[in-house]
């Protein structure tokens, strides 16, 4: 899932500026699961903004609505009227959600209420960790299902570096050394031969380095007439 965190309230208030009517748009998918921008968080943030702006003597009219998936047009079409009434739309979606709103409603002022952090998973209640960097050419088959691009601080393909110590990364003892994990996994599986080969330099064109990415699936595209 995409993991995000809410921005500090003061920063959010700064983004809202003088706007009188604010619409908070939550998202029912990833950011709900990571407790950053779902219906519940939208409600709490709405109350906070109403209370604090009232106490500061410039009460804002704050409404909330949560859509199932902020990153798809069809879910956004249902809130057209509410968007039209707002001076500012405060998105609690990930960066994709914010942009989907801004694209669908070109006249609306859309600002982000979250910082989108990474693609990852919950390790335990309240703890999330990064797992995928979307490099566009998956090599997990060579590395025991542990990604060195997302999880090695130096993105080494032929690790570990000399800073690996007792399973930890030199950057921070809270970070596990991805290459220690890869080594342990492949050793346990009797597949250490995979580490004896030199992995060649990566072709980063499939990653962000190749420019903004897009997938076109001709087998799924609709005939021109049906698109309209």
């Amino acid at each position, binding site marked *: 899932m995409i993991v995000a965190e809410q921005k500090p309230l003061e920063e959010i208030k700064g983004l809202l500026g003088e706007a009188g009517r604010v619409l908070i748009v939550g998202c029912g998918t990833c950011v709900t699961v990571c407790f950053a921008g779902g219906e519940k968080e939208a409600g709490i943030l709405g109350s906070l903004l109403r209370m604090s702006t009232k106490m500061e003597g410039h009460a804002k009219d704050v409404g909330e609505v949560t859509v199932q998936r902020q990153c798809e047009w069809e879910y956004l079409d249902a809130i057209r009227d509410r968007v039209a009434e707002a001076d500012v739309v405060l998105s609690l979606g990930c960066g994709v959600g914010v942009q989907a709103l801004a694209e669908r409603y070109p006249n609306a002022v859309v600002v982000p209420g979250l910082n989108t952090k990474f693609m990852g998973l919950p390790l335990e209640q309240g703890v999330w960790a990064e797992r995928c960097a979307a490099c566009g050419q998956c090599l997990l088959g060579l590395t025991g299902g542990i990604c060195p691009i997302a999880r090695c601080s*130096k*993105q080494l393909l*032929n690790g570990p570096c000399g*800073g690996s110590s007792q399973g930890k990364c030199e*950057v921070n003892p809270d970070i596990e050394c991805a290459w*220690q994990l890869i080594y342990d996994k492949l050793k346990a599986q009797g597949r250490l031969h995979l580490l004896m080969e*030199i992995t*060649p330099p990566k072709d980063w064109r499939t990653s962000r380095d190749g420019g903004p990415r897009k997938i076109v699936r001709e087998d799924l595209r609709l005939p021109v007439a049906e698109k309209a």
Partner: protein
Amino acid sequence: MTDTSNGYKSGSNLEKVLRAGNFAVTAELGPPKNADGEVIRKKAAILKGFVDAANITDNQTAIVRMSSVGAGTIALQAGLEPVMQMTCRDRNRLGMQSDLLGAYALGLRNVLCLSGDHQTFGNHPQSKNVHDMDSMQLVQMVVGLRDKNCFQCGEEIKGVNPRFFVGAAENPFGDPFDFRPYRLGKKAKAGADFIQTQLIYNVPKFREFMKRVVDLGVHKQVSILAGVGPLKTPGAAKYMRDQVPGMDVPDEIVERMEAAGKGIEDKKAKAAANKEAGIKICVEMIQQMREIEGVAGVHIMAIEWEEAVPIIMEKAGLLPRPTFNGSSGN
């Protein structure tokens, strides 16, 4: 010009020393955090004639310093053969190759390929790192420029190609310990000509590492220079033991450093006693390294203490250094 007679790969002094079967010695020269070339000339004057080549660090510990190409060129002009360090942290494959072309044109002949310390340790922790390639791939690339006469992309180099003597690093005490000898073997397979290890204070453990390296036959494919360095103070020993990831400093070494200055009130005398002990330990380690099968030389890391190197060399009986064709590379 490059001396490729006798089948030399690069013709560097370091290559000649190793090829002739001499116990090689390299040192380290840290460029300044400013644009003053005089700093390099002063340090080079201290080391010149006492070592076979000196590493010029590349933004060591991720702190901005004069480039290893620039500082290496000044060292060369001052008569000290440089080993240009190159990390994968700050440049992509375009930047690294163009610097290699420039460095070669300026007369540099040795390069040490490194991943690079992470930028969070340095003075620009906000920066973006690159890591387009890793150190293993960098070795392959520099070897390819020399032996395949082509750029990393496969395109032929038309005209003069850079012919470097190619080095890499290895930390014998990094984890997983069992994999380290194999990783060293991978660097040899990538084409590395020489290896400089991280600082070693735990000689028994290094001996165990080298035994495994020798069992794999890796020492015959690549010249291994063991990293040693004089400790200046007991505090430095303790810091390395307790705070530096991947460092293994036995208590015995710390205790010897603590004992050296014990009971000495005068600050200057205490510092001198500490330094003397540090140099003594370093000399002993060099002697021990010479007895270990597969060790082709030592890399002396006297960080911001270049003056210690000639003393260590003298005490270790490693002088004079070999010369070739009537003149040393220095």
